[in-house]
């Protein structure tokens, strides 16, 4: 029995699925730093804006490097590096309006940067002093979600709330609002992600699904998740899917901006597959040398998301040495802020864990807290009575 017995071969319908980026990739800035035109998407910003992207990219990479170093020195328990994914995050993050709401995974440090979340706040989760140290309502940036894909449903529900609040399709750009949900290639296998696609489609919810296909879900390559290019899945759910060069900040910006605008106007969801590569390990606990070739990494280094912007800025004389020096100085400053801030983060008090389980303290928890406080203080009085020091 051959595949033909079941109908046409997948390859003849969709083309080769995993061999390279494919001709469908939206790219506006080549790895060599040359601008490109695309029939549907164009970058409408200025060179000044591109300098801004460069700054975001450098600072994001520096935040990430500093956090990795802090983990190596034992100051963080773990860190999930975004190395290689800066353009996907900065491009999409800068395409959002202030009122839009972001539902991130635990790797969206670059998006957090674009939403003005103090990067120091990101460290709390990884240091073990809190489980999300920022106010999601302040920056319209949700808490990091660790269960893979769970946040895509939250994003879709939030988008349904926007519809009910009448802030979709009013043609007022300061009022119309949309949601963006971030997730990875591995997450596309999750039931929750597929359910969120169905909900978003059926209710025409104003949500953009931004998938960073970084080729790896810890040790499993994309081939373990999908037989067709991920962006093509959207069609089956009833909304458009687009594959964009995830290492091209201009393309990520242009495509996300268009998709968010479409959502705000009331035209429904879009799936964006940002085709990129996880240059580092899954987290600081991972060892990618066990499952992937260094040759792949070397190939992707040639497509580095920052190098191409730098090449563009230098070639066109769009930025001078002073600009680059200033950005580096700013990066140094942020690194110092992170390092000093991390070490100064106060540890939580164990008795506080009882306080935010419920809106009102249950009798059980109040009792447990009081008993535990007594237990703890029994050591203090013991050491006091023996003249010891704590």
């Amino acid at each position, binding site marked *: 029995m051959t595949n033909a017995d079941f109908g046409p071969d997948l390859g003849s319908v969709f083309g080769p699925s995993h061999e390279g980026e494919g001709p469908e990739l939206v790219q506006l800035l080549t790895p060599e730093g040359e601008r490109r035109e695309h029939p549907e998407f164009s970058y409408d910003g200025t060179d000044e804006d591109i300098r801004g992207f460069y700054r975001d990219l450098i600072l994001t990479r520096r935040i990430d490097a500093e956090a990795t170093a802090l983990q190596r020195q034992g100051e963080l328990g773990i860190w999930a590096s975004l190395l290689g994914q800066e353009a996907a995050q900065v491009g999409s993050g800068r395409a959002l309006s202030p009122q839009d709401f972001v539902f991130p995974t635990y790797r969206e440090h670059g998006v957090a940067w674009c939403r003005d979340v103090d990067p120091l706040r990101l460290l709390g989760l990884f240091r073990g002093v809190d*489980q999300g140290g920022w106010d999601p309502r302040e920056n319209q940036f949700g808490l990091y979600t660790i269960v893979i894909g769970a946040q895509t449903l939250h994003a879709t529900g939030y988008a349904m*709330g926007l519809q009910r609040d009448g802030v979709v399709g009013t043609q007022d750009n300061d009022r119309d609002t949309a949601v963006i949900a971030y997730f990875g290639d591995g997450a596309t296998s999750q*039931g929750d992600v597929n359910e969120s696609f169905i909900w978003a489609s059926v209710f025409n919810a104003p949500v953009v699904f931004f998938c960073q296909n970084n080729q790896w879900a810890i040790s499993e390559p994309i081939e373990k998740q999908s037989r067709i290019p991920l962006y093509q899945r959207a069609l089956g759910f009833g909304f458009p899917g687009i594959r964009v060069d995830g290492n091209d900040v201009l393309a990520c910006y242009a495509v996300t901006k268009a998709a968010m605008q479409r959502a705000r106007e009331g035209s429904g969801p879009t799936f964006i597959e940002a085709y990129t590569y996880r240059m580092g390990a899954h987290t600081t606990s991972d060892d990618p040398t066990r499952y992937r070739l260094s040759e792949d990494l070397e190939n992707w280094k040639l497509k580095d998301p920052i190098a191409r912007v730098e090449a563009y800025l230098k070639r066109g004389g769009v930025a001078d040495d002073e600009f680059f020096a200033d950005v580096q100085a700013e990066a140094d400053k942020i690194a110092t802020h992170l390092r000093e801030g991390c070490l100064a983060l106060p540890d939580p008090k164990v008795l506080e864990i009882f*306080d935010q*389980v419920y809106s009102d303290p249950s009798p059980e928890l109040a009792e447990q807290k009081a008993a535990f406080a007594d237990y703890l203080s029994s050591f203090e009085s013991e050491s006091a009575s023996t003249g010891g020091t704590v």
Partner: protein
Amino acid sequence: MAQITLAKALTNGLRAAMEADEKVILMGEDIGKLGGVFRVTDGLQKDFGEDRVIDTPLAESGIVGTAVGLALRGYRPVCEIQFDGFVYPAYDQIVSQVAKLRFRSGGKLPMPIVIRIPFGGGIGAVEHHSESPEGQFVHQAGLKVVACSNPVDAYWMIQQAIATDDPVIFMEPKRRYWEKADLDESPTEAPRGLHSSRVVHEGTDATVLAYGPMVKTSLEAAIAAAEEGKSLEVIDLRTLSPLDMEPVLESVRKTGRAVVVHEAPVTLGLGAELAARISEHCFYSLEAPVLRVGAFDTPYPPSRVEEEYLPDLDRVLDAVDRTLAY
């Protein structure tokens, strides 16, 4: 004052909650035109529209997961899970997200979500339609769990659950949906608190603790026991998490004996927790070990044997006799 079924009392309670707060929305499978498979949402979509009474796609994790997003946007979603055995696809969203978001956010993200679950057996249903999963939610910090047993409580408790800023798992005794009682929807006295247990039959010889469908069974047992000269005190727990231990402990200190009755399997069920707490706090008052009447540690069986499988009046009386024999 009209006689009203438990199901209809829930309908009226939901309607009152929706009238009181426009942020209250209902979501679930078949809850619109059909009014839900038990007709609890009957007529509500017609009156409140499709934006507030949402017929969802058929996926429980999706129902609860999108409810989280709606709650983050300021809504108060009330999710209907069609049957107890269908809640498990939503279990991850309930346990990992609904229960923990307030804690994770240091109190910044309240989750005012109610998840209604018709539970328990006795209706001759096929597999997955007769289960009692309440203990699995009681075990999860961050959730509140309540069970109504009669139309009056159903009417008030659903409104109180919806008004709560924490997630509430609302267990509905499906085989009692058609039980009737007089309901005064505008009482002179405020209804009792959501998280309070109450004595529904006074007695002196032993305390029977029950909730949901087993309250009626226990009351019937108390009447039968009285004919034999045994005086049972029956407590309707109403709240399973947090537990309201004061009335329980007070009763057991008086009677010296306790029997816990539920349809769920006994191992690690509510009865286990209650037995532990009673022995910790009433040790010197106890005349006998706390006994449990519940399901065996088997899956729920085919319905032709459920009458024998489920705790009934005789099983309760048997346990009462055993505790009195000490």
